[in-house]
């Protein structure tokens, strides 16, 4: 599932497969020393190394580190938005096409795109209609405001 998720954005090998450690329904990228420790100890860890993402229903909820890896790739499709639209996006709203200031790698209808505020990846969404449709919007599929929502739930 994790690999399918990454392939929605790029066919590059962004994560070393051998470093990936699955913990229940969560995936981590783990340095060798921690990997061995995690295997040797009598109890399962609850967190180890770099969190890549978790399964939620039939979707992947990506970790911030994975989003940053995707954002660092020159091949992934991106839309760039200004501060106000960026903040609305992290509050769970969609991105109006009229708020998109710039794009990278020509996103088209049906694509998953990273939503960027300058160099910061704020999450990702799906282009529901062509970006030329001024009334359209990019559907919010995940945003980093999730941290605040998780904290409130907790």
């Amino acid at each position, binding site marked *: 599932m994790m690999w399918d998720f990454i392939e929605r954005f790029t066919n590059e090998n962004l994560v070393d497969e051998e470093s990936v450690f699955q913990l229940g329904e969560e995936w981590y990228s783990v340095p060798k020393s921690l990997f061995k420790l*995690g295997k040797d100890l009598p*109890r399962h860890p609850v*967190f180890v190394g770099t969190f890549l993402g978790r399964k939620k229903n039939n979707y992947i909820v990506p970790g*911030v580190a994975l989003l940053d890896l995707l954002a660092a790739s020159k091949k992934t499709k991106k839309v760039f938005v200004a501060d106000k639209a960026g903040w609305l996006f992290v509050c769970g709203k969609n991105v109006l096409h009229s708020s998109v200031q710039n794009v990278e790698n020509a996103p088209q209808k049906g694509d998953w795109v990273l939503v960027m505020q300058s160099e910061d990846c*704020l999450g990702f969404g799906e282009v529901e209609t062509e970006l030329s449709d001024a009334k359209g919007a990019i559907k919010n599929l995940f945003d*980093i405001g999730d941290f*605040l929502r998780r904290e409130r739930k*907790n």
Partner: protein
Amino acid sequence: MNAFEQRYRQIGGKIVPVVLKPAIRVNTLKIDEQQLAERLAAKGVVLKKIPFAKHGYAVESSKFSLGASVEYLKGYLTPQETAAQLPVQVLDPQPGDRVLDMAAAPGVKTSQISQWMQNKGTIVAVEKNNRRVVGMKNNLERLDAQNCIAFNTDATKLKEWKLTFNKILLDAPCMGNYVKDKDWLGKHTLNELDRNTMTQKALLAAAVSLCEKNGTIVYSTCSLEPEENEFIIDWALRTLPVRCVSTGLTIGKEGLTQAFGKRLTADVKNTRRLWPHETQTEGFFVAKLVRQ
């Protein structure tokens, strides 16, 4: 007069309402301090370097809560009270160390350890309270702590795992203090001390058994009660193979060497006690022990 205030007066303290300035730690794993300061300045946020806390800044003014900002969500900063930034500074973890964080939730100090280690070396973080694990995981993820393995277990049981560490942080569960909670004085009684000190002694004894010879243990609390602080260190110096050395901190006062008619081991003065009315921080206590 409240029972706590009576006690504090006997040991040179008092209860004075303190308005804490919000403080943040810049997470240099993700951004340069100068870069973040400039970025926030452009949004009208005025920061002031805290002279005694590496990477620590007081928020002098801001029109929005930094705890609900893109900079927070991206892990460039984390709200962390000034005094709470000090235990890791005293521990001084370095790249390549093997560090144990014994009461790790909510993971802010654990991530601070990762920052000091530049994500190199190993941190074993342990939290006993299951309900606090989710928050800890969120912080470890947000703040990019990559060299950490965390467990939901009781740190006193780690002896069975046959691990040793050269640095250990025990930010012990404690009674807290009156600064952050205006109802604190009405909520707490001295009866809690017995149970707390039993837990603190058990955790500190476990820390000593898990620490390598010449390794460092930092014991801290956000309590002002000598029973949870100087008395615990006095007990450790009398019964465990440790010595108490200077924390290197300039803020706060030397630890008490006598309180409530009890005379303590002289080296307890090497600990540091932060009275809120003097330091304008929350109440805090830090001790640095070296395993013999």
